[in-house]
């Protein structure tokens, strides 16, 4: 069985999947691509619906025996199923619901806010050719032109503050990890928030538990190995267009 992972810098969704693969000891053929240059849209990658219409926007693509898969939390669930390392999801159904509901919050509320702030702080140079999804292409055009709605930027900053508060509350009982045991929720939360320290510093002004949690996370060998794949000094400052901000509510 050949498993190929096309990934960007270890930040955002690429971080989650790289770290999950290393945590689980899954053997991968790693292929670094430049997400900010739009290489995910090149003909070097397979382009089924699930790649071209991924809700995550620019994220990693895992190809298992010819099936190309996207969306980092679900890729991490897949790796958790097939890998040999310690479980990345709780076994108890209710604890598992808690983890999935937490990840859904990150995916739906935090990630779009982060991606909006991220590309606004470091706009990509050009809209790549070959984008199939018209709405993703629209987000690229806005990002390249530096077009950002003030209300959305303000709301996105508020969302980062709320996310850090939620983590502080979750860790308040002295636990090491968000769900008790280490899980995909830790990886996905860190993946999106790591780069926000520089962009929304006020959100981290009084977050001692979050700070200590991040330090614990970075000390894990699998996480260090993922971060070690960076080819730039600050991978957490590298952003390509991500999920859209909820247009319904």
């Amino acid at each position, binding site marked *: 069985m050949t498993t190929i992972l096309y990934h960007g810098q270890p930040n955002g969704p690429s971080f989650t999947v790289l770290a999950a693969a290393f945590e689980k000891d899954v053997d991968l053929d790693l292929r670094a691509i430049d997400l900010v240059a739009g290489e995910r849209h090149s003909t070097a990658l397979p382009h089924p*619906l*699930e790649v071209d*219409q*991924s*809700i995550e926007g620019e994220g990693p693509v895992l190809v*298992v025996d010819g*099936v190309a*898969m*996207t*969306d980092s*939390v*679900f*890729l991490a*669930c*897949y790796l958790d*199923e*097939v890998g040999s390392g310690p479980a990345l999801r709780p076994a108890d*159904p*209710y604890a*598992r*619901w808690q983890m*999935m*509901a937490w990840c*859904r919050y990150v*995916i*739906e509320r935090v990630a779009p806010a982060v991606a909006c702030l991220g590309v606004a702080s470091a706009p990509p140079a050009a809209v790549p050719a070959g984008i199939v999804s*018209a*709405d993703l292409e629209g987000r690229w055009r806005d990002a390249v032109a530096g077009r950002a709605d003030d209300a959305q930027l303000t709301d996105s900053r508020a969302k980062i503050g709320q996310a850090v508060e939620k983590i502080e509350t979750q860790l308040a009982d002295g636990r090491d990890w968000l769900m008790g045991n280490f899980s995909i929720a830790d990886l996905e939360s860190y993946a999106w928030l790591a780069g926000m320290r520089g962009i929304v510093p006020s959100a981290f002004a009084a977050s001692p538990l979050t700070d200590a949690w991040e330090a614990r996370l970075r000390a894990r060998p699998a996480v260090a190995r993922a971060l070690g794949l960076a080819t730039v000094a600050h991978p957490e400052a590298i952003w390509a267009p991500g*999920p859209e901000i*909820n*247009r*319904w*509510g």
Partner: protein
Amino acid sequence: MTDVTLYHWEPNANSGKPMLALFEKGVAFDSHYLDLLNFDQHKPDYLAVNPLGTIPAMTHGQYVLTESTAIMEYVDEAFDGPRLMPADPVDQWRTRWWMKFLDQWLAPSFSMIGWSVFVGPSVRQKDPVELEAAIDRIPMPERRVAWRKAINGAFSAEEMAESQRRVALGITYLEQALGQREWLAADSYGLADINGFNLAYAMPLSQPQLCNDSLTPNIMRWLRAIYARPATRACWALGRTDLARRISLLEGEPA
């Protein structure tokens, strides 16, 4: 009395997902119907269960669960009965991919259309002062905006056109996927189908020019197969309005 209570509206969209999953698993539950058009979901009794004021929510013993798709995964894992998540890890990934795509891309477009043609007009004639007070009680700011727009008919032409574009594309994606396999995400009936059916069961009625026996035979085959399941019949019997009754259009044979 059972130890499961489901707070739901019509078998439709988010409410219908855990309802149908519970019926498929054969789990008895106490049904607690909330009238969305009467703003029951923002009343103190329900906010004590789900402070976000959205439907559905489920309690199981001392546990309180929200998020319809995550509730379905819980129902599948916590109770006996047929497995609704496929066993193969790639199929599991595909199930989750589709549920996210439906929940976060296609469903919001259907919602915008549904709220502008149905939900808004249904509540618009209420006393304006009462309506304003009802909106002020909504916990999520995003939802206050959506309700105001629905009531005032204020969705922009651009937003509506974008929603219609996504609905049309979404239908072609569903048709394509159901042309590749019998069920949406795997070779057996499961959570992705339950999710998709709740969004799509009325499409032949609401989008007749896009979804019909000649243009989308695979979607029609799939909808009819799900409609034929005893769990689906039992679930839709809990509907109280014409919204749920739209399902009867699936009784017809292919044209």
